[in-house]
């Protein structure tokens, strides 16, 4: 694919990620922190987020399966999840974390379980989209 088409594709994908609400301005901050001394910063941080959050998801699943459910522990895990997802601009994931915490504060186990499915879903959707987007960015930079 020629250079211009690749760059147009990157721009279009990026615009779509913001327009569809998957990312917010915080992701732009990541991009602005990337420079010649740190050329892969965005990819590195996204990879870090998905490594960390995968572990958190496992912890949350274990906590949801334990009886009785320790809502304080669940809340702490989701607090951390929300912090890291908001820090990379993962807007939909962050919103679902907020919704989960409301059920957690109400000690509503069923609500937590349902809400957690939404968290995992948005987490997975964003991961796929970012993988494709960042791969296209890499291809475009190689043709620059």
């Amino acid at each position, binding site marked *: 694919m020629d250079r211009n088409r690749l760059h147009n594709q990157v721009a279009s994908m990026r615009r779509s990620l913001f327009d569809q609400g998957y990312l917010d301005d915080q992701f732009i*901050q990541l991009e602005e*922190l990337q420079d010649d001394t740190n050329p892969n910063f965005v990819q590195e941080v996204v990879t870090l987020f998905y*490594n960390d959050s995968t572990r958190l998801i496992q912890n949350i699943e274990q906590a949801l399966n334990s009886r009785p459910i320790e809502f304080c522990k669940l809340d702490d895990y989701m607090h*951390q999840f929300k912090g890291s997802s908001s*820090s990379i601009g993962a807007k939909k994931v962050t919103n679902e974390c907020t919704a989960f915490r409301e059920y957690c504060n109400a000690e509503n186990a069923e609500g937590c379980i349902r809400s957690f499915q939404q968290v995992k879903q948005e987490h997975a959707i964003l991961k796929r989209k970012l993988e494709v987007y960042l791969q296209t960015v890499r291809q475009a930079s190689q043709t620059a």
Partner: protein
Amino acid sequence: MAHTLPSSDQSSDQDKWDSGGLECKGQLLIKIVMRNRLTALVVDGDTTCWVLEQELLHSYGVQTLGVDNSRDAVDLIASDAEFNLIIIEKILPVLNGLEVTRQICEIGVHCKMLEVTACSGESERQAFLAIGVDVFIEKPLDPEHLVPILREVDGQ
């Protein structure tokens, strides 16, 4: 992208600028010129946040040290390590952020302390402010909140 200049040898250039002229806004990163080389301790158990907050501080020329648990933070401060700025998350391994903040304040730290956390109720916010935190910021840490604090610590 924020750029920084070395400190005092730029004072003649700085004299040419008006009080607001040092600052211009990029997309999101607010560009400022620091007079001094500041140092910051970042205490956060979440690696993503830990990396991001330090990188943001680096972009303003702030030297950082990061620890991912409260015990290391307290030990560092107790060993007389000095910082211009300490950034602490509420949820930490070993001790929670409130307790570690209390211990750091009891040691007698005299620097700007920021609580940067995902979310908290008003009562928690007040609890942190009561024990000595200067500013309470909801994550993510952004230039809009950080830059005024850096300028104050930098004596601008």
